[in-house]
């Protein structure tokens, strides 16, 4: 069942690419894993990142990049199956367990991850971290969110609007 190895096959077994973090660490990773990033996928399809070249990522430090790649390597097989229609329940449970474990990390690392996932356009990772952050804020009050996001204290006018909203959506506060 060996697939004919056509020279230009982008999906050829384990084609490797090199990524270079902002602090000049080189990471060699399978093209399929790196292609979870929409941004990198274009470069890789154009044949970039192979050989000695490497793709520089000036916005991602090595600690964050190694974490991002850990996610990509784990999720690459399922992504290759086109969203995993034929993945078994066991596979999905294993990915879910990995994901839960993966985001059980310090807030500053979460922040770096979601920023990197955003810059590299890794849809699944963005959502995974966003869900984790949503879990952390879902019980907070509007005032606490303002403080967390560094909004200035509300003007009396804004305060009145907040009160009106609470009156209107009182059930969500019960």
């Amino acid at each position: 069942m060996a697939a004919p190895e056509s020279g230009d096959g982008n999906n050829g077994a384990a084609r490797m690419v090199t990524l270079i973090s902002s602090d000049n660490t080189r990471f060699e990773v399978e093209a399929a894993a790196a292609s979870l990033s929409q941004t990198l996928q274009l470069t890789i399809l154009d044949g970039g990142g192979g050989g000695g070249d490497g793709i520089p990522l000036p916005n991602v430090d090595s600690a964050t990049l190694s974490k991002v790649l850990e996610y990509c390597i784990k999720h690459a097989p399922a992504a290759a199956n086109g969203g995993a229609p034929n993945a078994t329940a066991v596979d999905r449970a294993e990915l879910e367990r990995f994901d839960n474990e993966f985001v059980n990390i310090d807030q500053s690392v979460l922040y770096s991850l979601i920023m990197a996932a955003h810059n590299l356009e890794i849809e699944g990772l963005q959502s995974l971290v966003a869900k984790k952050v949503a879990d952390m804020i879902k019980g907070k009050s509007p005032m606490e969110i303002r403080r967390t996001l560094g909004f200035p204290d509300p003007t009396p006018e804004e305060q009145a609007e907040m009160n009106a909203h609470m009156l209107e959506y009182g059930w969500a506060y019960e």
Partner: protein
Amino acid sequence: MFNPHHLPLPVTLPSSSSSSSAAAVVDLDPRVWRRLPQPLVDRVLACLPTPSFLRLRAACRRFYSLLFSSPFLHSHLLLSPHLPFFAFAVPSSGHLLLLDPTAATAQQHRSSSWSRLPLPLPLPPPGAAAAAGHATFSPAAASAGLLAFLSDASGHKTLLLVNPITRLLAPLPICPNARLSPTVGLAAGPTSFIAVVAGDDLVSPFAVKNISADTFVADAASAPPSGFWAPSSLLPRLSSLDPRAGMAFASGRFYCMSSSPFAVLVFDVATNAWTKVQPPMRRFLRSPALVELGGGRQSEVRVGMVAAVEKSRLSVPRSVRVWALRSGAPSSSGGGAWTEVVRMPPDVHEQFAAAEGGRGFECAAHGDFVVLAPRAAAGPAPENVLIFDSRRDEWRWAPPCPYHHHHPYVGNGGAGGGGGAGFRLFAYEPRLATPAIGLLDATAPMALHGMQG
């Protein structure tokens, strides 16, 4: 503008920690998160459960306006967690009582299982009101964040689709056939919905009693996308529908109970045809209800039946049982099409039977949960609500509903009487985005309030 039902709510700012302290207390560090760019803030907000989003929406004007942003609503539909809530509709109370069956698993904060969601009741038509009394509507079905309300007056009924969260409401075109108190089914998807209004034809005493059904299909992919009523089809002979029982929907078919004798009627939407399936143990059933088992965002819905079983022989103990209809079974008749899923343990059943007192019970299923509520003896509000959690294989009582005594319209007999007294129970997911209602755009859905610039 303001609905008077809102006024008694507390004006004070609730202290944040009161309802949330038990859930993993993580203090978010402003030094980290204040740098988060706006698109990512929005992505996080789109992952919030609906009630949390509505609460945090008050934080600033930009968050507030997200409820009117289509891209945001689309992300929220995709990213926010499925909430397997239940809605108790108490006649003429002006609100739904929402039960979160998952909150009851955490031992703390018992009251957080319940909340009270005001309904955007349609305004009575000006002028015409005096003679016939206000046009009133009663909730009749629920699907995918939408409730269907049916006009109470007999004749050509009006069906309204309502999203009680965003307070959007849109009427369907008036029903083609006059009816008294029909059974209603609703199945809403992301780009389509189907409504069925069946039975209780207003026939003259001299006419042969043909019981019929009308179907409304709206689909973004068909023309016109705003939908139309399909000509009625006839139900099997001698069908007798209970309008309080409602319909369940799975895989393109609606299911409803016919009584004396009990039978399950199956309506295939594509073929516009009805068939019959024999229920299990049908001679010994009492208060049977059809429910939608499973059906989170991941799993397939199966039709289930929940009923009290009362057989005099001691070898078959009285109980309440849940069966699932085997997929692909509808055309075959006979009770063999059903698989028993679970039955109430004797000790639980003893308490449940005492609370129920033979009056029957309301029942619905949502995700991993089945909820049973005895029909009320005295007040119209639910008491002694029982939850079956299939994931934990556990029966437990919901915390008492704290809103019994806040019922402003008790004794207002005539007003919402269409479906008879007593509450109805629906599987209801509070959703911000209910795109199906947008298919009715042609008839100009209106937001009643909450739209200040």
